[in-house]
């Protein structure tokens, strides 16, 4: 049903020019038949004029029984913009790898046109399909139509957040394990943890198929699963020569930039000292036709990255240097490690303490003790350089041991 234009938007209009696709055009397109999108235009223009946002956080709204998946929002100008007096976001769990059929997309659009603003994010930073803005009483309607169409809500709050992954084996020759398969498995294994927040704070999984880490798991997942291999890089010398012929300076652009300094090129053949390869992907990235990760493939598991709030930002660090990730996933030993981690974090963690902060507070060594893993040199960049070792046990003269 067409909606009449309500607002002049001289500032936003300036963002309709230029070659990059314009979000203002998107909101205007939706506003032609959606009163919420129309009021959003008015509100956003006011924000641009005043240089301030006009939203209040809503902490209680959700669908029945779930503690995640809905972000509550109310404008602080409800009388002026009544259509967006409520403007709650719904996070819809994306299919792994973000593949869709046109039919699935149209189904999602139909649901959102009937019950929301007609505006989306494809996708949110965590990976979910974001339905941007609806009223409290519409949440259940959207939810029931979504589940009827085979979709469910993703996570938000102190729960397992919607896991996401790179396209992996679906379209990438470098995938060292089946990222999409594992992501689907993890998402289903932890449905309860995803929908019913029971942790001190959020818990994110991200799966990348190789050390290029296309989903930035090392920077933004509490549990980062990054594909790698432990045998020799596969080499096709003929193709290496072809790259050289086509102008690639193998010594300068590859051997000299190799962090393991383990490549030599004699103008005819490339030699790789695989025992010193750091698995950085640089040489493979530059010669995809000639080089490939080895055949003994799996992943490294890192834990603990997070954004700065509260105790400062962290990158994930190595917990498991190498693991094979093959079906049946049920039989993998990492679930026990992960669930042990959660137990101790729930038991001892402070409110809003991410697991990375928790590990820093108690110390990685103590954390390993608690979850039953042995320390390994791969877990540190270097051993300690301060001599203040707190030994937990020492001998007394009297005791005869």
């Amino acid at each position, binding site marked *: 049903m067409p909606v009449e234009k309500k607002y002049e938007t001289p500032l936003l209009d300036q963002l309709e020019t230029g070659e990059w696709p314009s979000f203002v055009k998107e909101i205007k397109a939706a506003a032609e038949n959606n009163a919420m999108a129309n009021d959003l235009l008015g509100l956003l223009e006011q924000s641009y004029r005043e240089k301030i946002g006009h939203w*209040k*956080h*809503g*902490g*209680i709204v*959700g669908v*029945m*029984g*779930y*503690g*995640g998946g809905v*972000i*509550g929002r*109310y*404008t602080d100008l*409800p009388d002026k913009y009544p259509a967006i*007096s*409520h403007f709650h976001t719904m996070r819809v769990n994306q299919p792994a790898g973000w593949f869709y059929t046109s039919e699935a997309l149209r189904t999602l659009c139909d649901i959102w046109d009937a019950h929301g603003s007609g505006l989306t994010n494809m996708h949110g930073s965590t990976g979910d399909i974001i339905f941007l803005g609806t009223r409290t009483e519409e949440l259940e309607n959207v939810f029931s139509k979504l589940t009827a169409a085979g979709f469910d809500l993703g996570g*938000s*709050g*102190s*729960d397992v957040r919607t896991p996401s992954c790179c396209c992996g084996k679906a379209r990438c020759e470098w995938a060292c394990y089946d990222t999409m398969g594992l992501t689907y498995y993890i998402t289903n294994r932890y449905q*309860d943890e995803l929908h*019913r*927040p*029971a*942790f*001190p*704070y959020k818990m994110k999984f991200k799966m990348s198929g190789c050390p290029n880490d296309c989903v930035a798991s090392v920077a933004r997942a509490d549990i980062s699963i990054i594909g790698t291999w432990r045998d020799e890089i596969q080499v096709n010398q003929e193709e290496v020569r072809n790259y050289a012929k086509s102008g690639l300076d193998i010594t300068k652009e590859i051997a000299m930039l190799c962090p393991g300094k383990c490549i030599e090129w004699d103008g005819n053949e490339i030699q790789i000292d695989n025992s010193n390869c750091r698995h950085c992907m640089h040489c493979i990235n530059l010669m995809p036709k000639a080089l490939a990760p080895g055949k003994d493939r799996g992943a490294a598991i890192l834990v603990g990255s997070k954004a700065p709030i509260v105790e400062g930002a962290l990158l994930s660090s190595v917990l498991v240097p190498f693991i094979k990730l093959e079906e049946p996933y049920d039989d993998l030993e990492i679930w026990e490690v992960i669930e042990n981690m959660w137990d101790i974090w*729930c*038991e001892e*963690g402070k*409110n*809003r303490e991410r697991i990375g902060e928790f590990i820093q507070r108690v110390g990685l060594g103590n954390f390993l003790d608690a979850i039953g893993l042995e320390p390994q040199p791969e877990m540190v960049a270097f051993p300690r350089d301060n001599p203040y070792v707190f030994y937990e046990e020492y001998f007394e003269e009297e005791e005869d041991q």
Partner: protein
Amino acid sequence: MALDIEKVKEAMYKLVKDSAGMKKWKATDLHKACEELFGDEYDKRGIGKDAIKELVEEGKLVYTYFGGSYLEIPHKEGAAND
């Protein structure tokens, strides 16, 4: 004698209700309190988890998000518009 889930639910509901406005309870806090109340019989992964699930599905408690997830008695929040 097995612990009765209704008793656990009642205890949890009372904890939340009696401190409404004063303290916000996370699921882990409720588990810790119930471990004190019921001792070894209380299993947070079994009966504890089920009790919370039922309380929420019955609408007696609701999950909220204020920088962290909590369980609260349903109420109208300060930010809500009509």
